[in-house]
């Protein structure tokens, strides 16, 4: 186990799921996740895998407060979220959680720089100059320094996904939740995005939880959760995380 992974395993819980179940109402109710207990600690690099319909994304949305469990509860930094109103959940997402989706979901009419500044502007804690400088730094560190004034449709898939990562990092949240971040990319771009996510964990001390179908990538993360029919059927800690090229 690497020194960082060992530290992460003993760190304080960052996100806790306590018996969460999510059932979609309807004529035939659909159970998305069922009775999941899970603790994610600071600086962990977690992969969630499973076949389609196993509840991977649903679990991620519940952990990211985008959805509410039918029963059970999610705690962020030890704070129960069940009784939070819409405003509080929105603020928690804005400050504590960063999202990266399979499709970049950038605002198409806005330049790359504006897209990255969006969460900072929504939070409104920095001056315009500070926001701009921070967005410049983030995009520069992700190799997008020359593309700041381009619109998303002028970038490649990998570049767009890196912009999405920069946007997720904008307010410096401790947790990045990624839903199939490499799902729509070719292998080269996938590798680039994976490296970016790994850097977030190793260099910036962030916690990254990523849903993926790619078992090869999952094997290279610190921890591998496997889901089937809405339940966790495997929770494996990799004692010696496999690094690219290792």
């Amino acid at each position, binding site marked *: 186990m690497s020194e960082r992974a060992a530290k992460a395993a003993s760190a304080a819980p960052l996100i806790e799921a306590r018996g969460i179940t999510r059932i979609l109402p309807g004529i035939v109710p659909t159970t998305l996740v069922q009775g999941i207990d899970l603790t994610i600690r600071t600086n962990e690099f977690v992969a969630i895998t499973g076949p389609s319909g196993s509840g991977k994304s649903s679990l991620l*949305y519940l952990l990211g407060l985008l959805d509410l469990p039918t029963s059970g509860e999610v705690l962020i930094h030890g704070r129960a979220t069940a009784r939070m109103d*819409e405003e509080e959940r929105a603020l928690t*997402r*804005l400050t504590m959680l960063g999202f990266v989706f*399979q499709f970049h*979901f950038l605002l198409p009419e806005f330049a790359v720089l504006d897209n990255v500044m*969006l969460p900072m502007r*929504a939070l409104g804690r920095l001056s315009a100059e500070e926001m701009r400088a921070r967005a410049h730094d983030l995009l520069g560190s992700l190799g997008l320094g020359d593309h700041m004034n381009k619109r998303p449709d002028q970038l490649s898939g990998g570049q767009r996904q890196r912009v999405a990562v920069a946007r997720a990092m904008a307010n410096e949240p401790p947790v990045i939740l990624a839903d199939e971040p490499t799902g729509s990319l070719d292998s080269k771009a996938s590798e680039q995005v994976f490296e970016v996510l790994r850097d977030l964990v190793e260099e910036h001390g962030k916690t990254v939880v990523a849903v993926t179908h790619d078992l090869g990538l999952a094997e290279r993360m610190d921890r591998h959760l496997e889901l089937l029919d809405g339940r966790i059927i495997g929770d494996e800690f990799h004692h010696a995380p496999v690094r690219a090229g290792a």
Partner: protein
Amino acid sequence: MNLVFDIAWTHVRYRVRQTGFAVAGVATGVGFSIMMAALMQGSQNDFTKRLVNTLAHITVSDERRNPPAQPAEKMFATAEIHGLTPEARRPGIKNPLATMAALEAWLPGGIGPSVKVQAIIRYANHDVSTTVTGIDPRREAKVSELAQQMRGATLNALYRATNAIVIGDRLSEKIGARIGANITLQTSQGARITAQVVGFFHTGVRQQDESTAYVLTKTGQILAQQTGLINELRIRLADPLKSREVAARVENDTGYKSVSWEEAYEDLLSTFVIRNLIMYAVVGAILLVASFGTYNIISTITHEKARDIAIMKSLGLREFTVRSIFVLEALIIGLAGALVGFLLGYLLSRALGAVKITNPFIDSDHLPLAYSYVHYLLAGFVALISSVVAGYQPARKAARVHPVEIIRGAT
């Protein structure tokens, strides 16, 4: 720039065609509303001005509004006497000069005595019922604009001949009398004189021009068969809009019935209220139709932007912020529509004002139009409100979007 404004502005700016149509809808509504308001207000103003200029603002007649109380009624509060034949009084205002002097002491305007007699004008086999008013031409300028309304002669022409008369131009056309014609005036009491037409007047109010004539006070008294009779005091005020309250005070002071021009034409003026109601209803309907366009565009934008809304909410934007974005878009459309509508309304009004018309009821050969900033403010305000109301519902719906549903649908 504010985030909400930035996103809203970008949305409307990137949909030039759709935004253009929505703005055009609002602009058309605002433009036509302004034009209609200008036309209706203009015709109303023109008519009111004509009424005010034609008539004395207050007419004090020798009548009483209520019969005098009977002695028994004065003595006993509970006594009420009905069915008495009214006391036959000698016509005329008592001590008219003293009454006038008392009123002139406080009256904010001019006052003139006159004799009003109903007579039939006979000329060339025409018998026309006419109101003949005996006036003092030197005082007339204080109480009416008759001097300015004279055609073919001045008011002083009344001094030119014995029993001189000036008649309305429409009356002259009706009976075919020209200047110099000798016409016969006959009253129901049997008085009969021959008068010479020395001039015409034109007030623009058909009723006046068709059935009114002016003679000297002395001639009027001969027709009324009562020397020294003054049965009417005519008052013209500096501010015609105060005529109702001044009339009430005059009536209170003199005891004689004082009728303001507003009271005399109450029925006519009340039709303006209905006209205005119709105008506002039509303007409201036009703007309502325009607001459907705004509703449509905001609904379309929110539908197209469902994914962006979901992503903004997943990033942590509040419902209020998302709702504000689309309400602001509606406001931008409404504001742009109102501004374009102002220009359109002005141009339409000018175009309408340039159209030549022939209408026997108005003197001008162009439609009377009123240019008032109030019309612009009102139409703009209603356009903004209706745009915001139209945009609110789709904005509210958009803000309530559950991000997970959209994100799931997109992946």
